[in-house]
């Protein structure tokens, strides 16, 4: 599937200042380098299980993180590393989780698909397709109930649009006008299935009116544009408790997970999408519009490389979870009895 025509042209967006751009670029690159390091570890057999990479979609997490206020929440799928890094989770803890270590983000209980970092606003990566949508609606329900002014952002793949839980969760959010934004990361494929074999329509926001939601839809090419348009939806959720359905046209450059060679896509198609890589675009802007030097860019990349090396080093040298840990976490009182170690 080639990149669709953008429903609205990607206009240059205001507020494009250098500091901002540098920050976004840095964050996108950190996600990419984190995942490249994870992929290497996986290939070396140091990580097992599933590993779904976010490479190509980083701008979404970075734009989102920039918009979040304290108390706001992100709920997402198993493709969750990008949000964790963007939201400020320690990359060492993230990597240690992939290694199934005691020092991991969730102590080795969840692995790649289940990053949770409540303090950072990451309310979880979920692995049953669509199953998190009603949960996110529930967070928004609580916000409205408590009047805490928080917004919940629920991310899902386009493949999740065809399952019941998604329908029910979105419908309840629309019926009750809850402060939530549903963001479809339409990366064109659900595993090996292209959009046209998944769904009867091209434009997934066609469902929004059935849920009394507003909608928006664009190609994710530019992190600023993505930030600006997401901001409108978030504001609408926060100020008017009006939920919305956003479809982001994007692409994952890697296979569905590490075990997927991605044979169902042509090199051409992948290359076409790579030309719109928001990370690449940000790099070009830094260089061409802001005169940032190659050296500076290299230095940045190197710094990030060091961070990721350190993350890997931390993960590798961390201890395994305590054998007794497998019995913990199920019931509140068990953890209390075990000294609150979680």
């Amino acid at each position, binding site marked *: 599937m080639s990149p669709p025509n953008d429903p609205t042209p990607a206009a240059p967006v205001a507020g494009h200042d250098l500091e901002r751009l540098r920050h976004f670029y840095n964050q996108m690159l950190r996600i990419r380098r984190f995942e490249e390091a994870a992929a290497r570890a996986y290939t070396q057999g140091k990580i097992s299980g599933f590993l779904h990479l976010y490479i190509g979609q980083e701008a979404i997490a970075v734009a989102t993180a920039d918009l979040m206020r304290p108390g706001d929440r992100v709920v997402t799928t198993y493709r969750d590393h990008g949000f964790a890094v963007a939201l400020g989770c320690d990359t060492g803890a993230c990597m240690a989780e992939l290694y199934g270590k005691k020092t991991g983000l*969730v102590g080795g209980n969840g692995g790649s698909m289940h990053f949770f970092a409540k303090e950072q606003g990451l309310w979880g990566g979920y692995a*049953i397709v669509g*199953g998190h949508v*009603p949960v996110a*609606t*529930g967070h928004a329900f609580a916000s409205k109930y408590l009047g805490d002014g928080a917004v919940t952002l629920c991310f899902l793949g386009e493949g999740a649009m065809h399952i019941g839980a998604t329908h029910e969760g979105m419908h309840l959010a629309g019926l009750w006008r809850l402060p939530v934004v549903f963001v479809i990361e339409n990366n064109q494929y659900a595993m090996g299935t292209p959009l046209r074999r998944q769904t009867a329509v091209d434009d997934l926001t066609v469902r929004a009116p059935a849920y009394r939601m507003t909608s928006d839809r664009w190609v994710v090419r530019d992190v600023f544009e993505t930030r600006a348009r997401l901001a409108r939806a978030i504001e609408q959720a926060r100020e008017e408790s009006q939920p919305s359905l956003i479809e982001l046209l994007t692409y994952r450059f890697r296979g569905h997970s590490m075990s997927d060679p991605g044979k169902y896509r042509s090199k051409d198609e992948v290359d076409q999408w790579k030309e719109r890589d928001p990370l690449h675009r940000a790099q070009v802007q830094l260089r061409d519009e802001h005169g940032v030097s190659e050296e500076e860019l290299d230095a940045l990349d190197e710094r990030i490389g060091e961070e990721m090396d350190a993350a890997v080093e931390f993960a590798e040298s961390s201890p395994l979870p305590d054998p007794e840990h497998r019995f913990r*976490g199920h019931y*509140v009182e068990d953890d209390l009895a075990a000294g609150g170690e*979680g």
Partner: protein
Amino acid sequence: MTVLQIREALRAAIDEEMARDDRVFVMGEEVGHYDGAYKVTEGLLAKYGEQRVVDTPIAEAGFAGVGIGAAMAGLRPIVEFMTFNFSAVAFDQILNNAAKLRQLSNGQFTLPIVFRGPNAAAHMLSSTHSQAFESFYCGFPGVKVISVATPYDAKGLLKSAIRDDNPVLFFESEVMYSVKGEVPDEEYLIPIGKADIKRPGEGITVITWGQGVPVALAAAELAARDGLDCEVIDLRTLRPLDDEAVLASVRKTNRAVLVYHGWPYGGTGAEVSDRIQRLAFDHLDAPIERVCYDDVNMPYAENLEQLVIPSPERALEVIRKVAYYRI
């Protein structure tokens, strides 16, 4: 003491806990404007308003998930399934979200949520509406499971369930909502995880819960006429099981029969039986037997339904068989 129906006892528990804690709310189909399909929540909308008594569309996976998400965010939802049969479409939410999210997040979230509603056969509702769901849910690490048979237990355990910080599945019975019994006027809680001896005895242990309780007690009456002295234990909490209460009785009587509503293959009944043979093997003088549904889909016809559902007479027969068993 006041005499209340189970329905009223449940309502009182919800009402008291809602009054006590603003974060407690009720959600489900017809719980508000209709006052509850079985009137458990009658009057609560009028008292607490639409924010705290939330009518939902028909979307069990959706509103179970909303409850879970709300619990993670600090509320204390009581989610009513109009009957537990309809929880079948919310199975994934209970299995993969309610039961797992605390452990999966390594303790970052607590999920103080109660799923409640009537369970098992009522009267001529046919197979899709007559199922005993505790057998499935008891298997899930991460939840607690309660089943009540008296107004006293209903109130005391529902209050404990609402205050519990873990997900609790709370099973009631449509045909028992009008059963009456004494309930203290002052506040009380019944601890989760404790069985109750509903009838002390020395001869044979009869283990039961939920709708099985009146059947077991009636069978024990019949058995008494035969000179058989049954000890009837109402498990009340099915997860975690009160092994000690069961084993203490079996060590004394050396014989056990289970009487309950539900299918025979697996589930809570088989688990209790297995624990007894495993943990009281040397004390057993007879095989453990179970009196439950026939292994069939519940037929609509009244005569067939009555045959499928355990009766005091059928239970008596099995009690006698076990009591008189000689190796």
